[in-house]
């Protein structure tokens, strides 16, 4: 057997790799010092955290009924925002799918719009809509709608683009209209994936809806904000638990539905 030279454990990095690694490491370290997180701060903060927990416990059930009503309203905001968002996502997704869209420029423009909807955080949309339509749940619903479009239109478009081209070719060959091809071949094939995306949108909107109240866009967030500002920590605990249960139930239900349908 010929002599074999054992390869080194790691390949010799190129200069570029070495410099980039160093730069990333430096940036990570500087990130910690800029934000001022330290173990010491955490340790000093622990007693305060303990006091807060003490004041939160036991959670006060005094205002349980209004809290539950407001929780229901929050969920209704999420449902309305999701449904509106999904409604507008469908045509936008068709325009954003290269093989279905009338023109490449439209694909580019719609993808840009959807990406913009997605990258601006929902809280910012909520502030924008509070300015536009005033305080209250309507602003929240619109913010959740825009957020849903940013998410769902993209995944709808991908699901449509990935469908089998064969049935499309069959319909094209017989002279079917573009809408006929989309509704009788593309959407039926993309449906399982689209339902999955819709359920994720609802989960996302439910989580999103609970904080929109912080900027006055309706829902339970405002209750949480008021009780924290009034130092009613036991009230706040009730609200946090209620939010937790709502999100948990929606996620569980959505998983169950997904399992049944797909």
């Amino acid at each position, binding site marked *: 057997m010929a002599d074999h030279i054992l390869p080194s454990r790691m390949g010799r990095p190129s200069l570029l790799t070495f410099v980039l690694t160093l730069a990333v490491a430096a940036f990570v370290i500087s990130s910690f010092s800029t934000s001022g997180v330290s173990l010491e701060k955490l340790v000093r903060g622990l007693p305060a955290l303990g006091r807060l927990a003490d004041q939160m416990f036991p959670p006060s059930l005094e205002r349980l009924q209004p809290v539950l009503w407001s929780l229901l309203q929050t969920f209704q905001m999420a449902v309305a925002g999701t449904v509106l968002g999904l409604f507008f996502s469908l045509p936008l997704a068709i325009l954003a799918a290269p093989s279905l869209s009338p023109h490449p420029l439209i694909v580019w423009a719609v993808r840009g719009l959807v990406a913009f909807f997605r990258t601006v955080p929902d809280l910012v949309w909520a502030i924008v809509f509070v300015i536009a339509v005033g305080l209250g749940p309507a602003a929240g619903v619109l913010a959740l709608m825009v957020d849903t479009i940013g998410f769902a239109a993209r995944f709808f478009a991908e699901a449509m683009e990935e469908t089998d081209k*064969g*049935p499309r*070719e*069959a319909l*094209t060959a017989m*002279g079917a*209209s573009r809408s006929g091809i989309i509704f*009788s071949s593309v959407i039926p094939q993309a449906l399982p994936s689209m339902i999955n995306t819709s359920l994720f949108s609802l989960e996302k909107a439910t989580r999103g809806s609970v904080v929109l109240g912080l900027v006055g866009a309706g829902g339970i967030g405002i209750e949480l904000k008021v009780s924290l500002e009034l130092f009613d920590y036991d009230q706040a605990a009730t609200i946090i638990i209620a939010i937790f249960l709502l999100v948990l139930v929606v996620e569980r239900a959505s998983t169950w539905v997904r399992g049944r349908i797909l």
Partner: protein
Amino acid sequence: MAVGSTLTAAISLSGLAKSFGVGKQVFSDISFDIAPGSLVALIGANGAGKSTLLRCIPRLIDPDQGEIKVLGADVLAGRRGLRSIRSRLGFVFQKHNLVGRLSALSNVVHGAQARRYGPRAWHQALSPQSLRAEAMACLDRVGLASVAAQRADSLSGGQSQRVAIARALMQRPDIVLADEPAASLDPQAGDEVMALFATLMREERKTVVFTSHNLTHALAFADRVIALGTGRILLDAPTQGISEGTLRTLYG
């Protein structure tokens, strides 16, 4: 349906050429006329260009050169009249091309999209009774009325291709093109599907062009055989005078 008695050719190709990329010529200078009501087999080895040629007829592929006339209409004239030309051409694919998640009945109803637009031909649940009944009759003609409600992806290969044939019937076309309709099936199912297809097409007096690499199918079911090889027509003759041996020598 009468194809216009003055018309001598249902399909007329002249000087057709197609290449993919530079120097990869599929075929060149292909010319032939297909008489109304005839069944023509387009044969050739794998890669001889028969599928490409067939796909040029409804302009699923654009040829580089030449002329295509379908029932007297110029296929390459522009996009405007293309849909109405396509509506008179049925197409049966090697891979059937059904929407797997929809029922057999819905897939057959889709055939009506050749003549009517709008949601009524999108899904059997949206269709008027007349359309559903017609689709059911088409399924019955291919012997599959009993599986109308089943999802297309739950059918066997042979059944699935028969549903595709029913969809082509639903279209009420004058001409039916079939690209290797039996090639994705096992030999027995392939023979059955080919026999059913040819019988139905003769009963309906459709003009048919089908591609096949199965010489037995070509001789058994066609009136005329056009053999393609190295991008040219090697043989174009009525089936009667040809033996399987002659065809075999063509492909060495």
